[in-house]
């Protein structure tokens, strides 16, 4: 039984997010699309501004005060993320643009160096396009074989079917930690153990996970972990790749340029040590500070409490939506995060989202960058409502009322 946290500071949290108190086209905002991108609290917005106003300059190598201050803040942000993920060293945290770039970095750098023709990569049928396409590059380039774990009817992944795909030739397992379409939480601990048993490395796409639950990369023995700042209530333009030090050290650079070198001559260039080796060019300096502020913010509330709050919203939404005739929830795995994808037998997801918008309810309709998953369920698209730390039951009531409005019009 879930213990309801009556002390969850929902009012305070909502007050921290300036956009949540705004009205659009005369309607208060009911934002149920945090899975696509989360809103930002003042703490994040202010920290990004503060860097620009008080301690901004390009980082590294600057002798002057401001550059040193900016460098210090940037590296401090890295330590904040290190602690957040439970990584052993700060140098195992690489700042990227987003999850997509983090995955591409591993596919391109690790994949090109260590994969050979006939080697196998295992992904799941739940993956976002960003955890499919980078691996397909290796299929084309190197003749690597891509194997896909099928999705079960309820949107879960069967460990037996997964294990059956692993062979001594499996070099990489790349899987979502939590599905962006269905909310399924994958059994990653067992998946990692089984992958390691055959000598494969594991990359987890944590884009949908870090805001819902605490992740400890050492405890789970994760090889690579990727996530984006903007889904964690942080800025756009900054993402993270965690990689085990010995793996990152063995990998060639991903991009060449400034900051990633030790010395350059026209005959020979030597590369900088971690993490600079993977951070060519001027990075997202203020955004890194904003990301650290976002991590501090969710940590101060407590991911366990956020998770409990969102679980309560998910249970409530599931119960309410299941009472509606003609509505089918896609993705009913027992272990789920705060995402509800659904279809109506009388209206197309695009029409649903349009009617919702007129009621001030922002949800997403479409294939959610997971076309293979849509094909699996034989649907063109779904309507998807997702919940963040700031959502309320009253907003789910608004969601249900909006479905009734669609029903009125289309049924």
């Amino acid at each position, binding site marked *: 039984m879930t213990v309801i946290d009556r002390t969850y500071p929902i009012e305070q949290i909502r007050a921290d997010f300036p956009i949540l108190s705004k009205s659009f086209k005369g309607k208060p905002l009911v934002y149920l699309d945090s899975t696509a991108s989360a809103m930002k609290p003042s703490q994040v917005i202010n920290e990004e501004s503060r860097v620009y106003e008080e301690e901004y300059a390009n980082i590294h190598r600057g002798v002057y005060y401001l550059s040193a201050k900016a460098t210090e803040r940037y590296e401090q942000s890295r330590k904040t993320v290190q602690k957040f993920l439970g990584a052993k060293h700060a140098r195992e945290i690489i700042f990227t643009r987003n999850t997509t770039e983090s995955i591409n970095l591993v596919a391109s750098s690790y994949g090109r160096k260590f994969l050979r023709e006939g080697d196998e990569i295992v992904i799941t049928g739940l993956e976002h396009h960003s955890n499919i396409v980078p691996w397909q590059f290796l299929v084309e380039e190197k003749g690597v074989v891509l194997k896909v774990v099928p999705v079960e009817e309820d949107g879960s992944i069967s460990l037996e079917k997964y294990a059956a795909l692993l062979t001594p030739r499996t070099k990489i397992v790349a899987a979502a930690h939590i599905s962006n379409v269905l909310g399924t939480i994958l059994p990653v601990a067992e998946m990692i153990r089984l992958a390691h048993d055959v000598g494969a490395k594991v990359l987890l796409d944590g884009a949908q996970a870090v805001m819902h639950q605490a992740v400890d990369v050492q405890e789970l023995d994760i090889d690579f972990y990727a996530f984006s700042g903007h889904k964690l209530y942080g800025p756009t333009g900054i993402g993270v790749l965690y990689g085990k030090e010995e793996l990152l050290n063995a990998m060639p650079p991903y991009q060449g340029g400034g900051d990633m070198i030790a010395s350059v001559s026209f005959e020979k260039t030597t590369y900088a040590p971690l993490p600079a080796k993977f951070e060519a060019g001027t990075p997202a300096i203020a955004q890194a500070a904003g990301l650290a502020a976002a991590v501090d913010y969710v940590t101060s509330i407590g991911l366990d409490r956020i998770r409990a709050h969102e679980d309560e919203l998910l249970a409530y939404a599931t119960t309410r939506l299941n009472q509606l005739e003609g509505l089918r929830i896609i993705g009913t795995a027992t272990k789920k995060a705060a995402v509800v994808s659904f279809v109506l037998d009388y209206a*197309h997801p695009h*029409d649903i989202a349009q009617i919702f918008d007129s009621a001030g309810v922002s949800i997403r309709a*479409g294939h959610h960058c997971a076309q293979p998953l849509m094909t699996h369920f034989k649907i063109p*698209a779904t309507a998807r409502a997702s919940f963040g730390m700031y959502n309320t039951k009253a907003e789910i009531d608004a969601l249900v009322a909006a479905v009734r409005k669609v029903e009125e019009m*289309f049924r």
Partner: protein
Amino acid sequence: MSDDLRDLYQEVILDHGRHPRNKHTLEHASHLAHGENPLCGDKLIVYVKLSPDNVIEEVSFEGQGCAISTASASLMTEVMVGKSLAEAEKLFGNFHALATGEGETDITGLEDDMDRLEVLAGVRDYPVRVKCATLAWHTLSAALHDQQKVSTE
């Protein structure tokens, strides 16, 4: 219901969305094309039967889409019957102008058809929905130009 929404989802659209006309395959089609809007996953096939003197005898469609795209395809299959290739081209240009609010608007000789299609003009206020309304039309145009596939990306 807000008036804005009523402009978009007029009764005629809801009716054609629920009960689309000419939604079936065409056994003796002379032309066909597949249309796809990869952003929303909508897919359809448009079939055309041209007479020996290049007049559209029949148009039909199959596929799945939202109310707007289904209604637009349905209305298109009705207004296109009996049109020569040149008239079809002109109607396409005018419909495109109607849906986007930009481009050609010489409707001489097509007044009645444009009157019927006016119900779809509401989409121009919803940029992301314009593609829903124009998908079937682009697909028909592709079929008539002997292209097999079209994508409204």
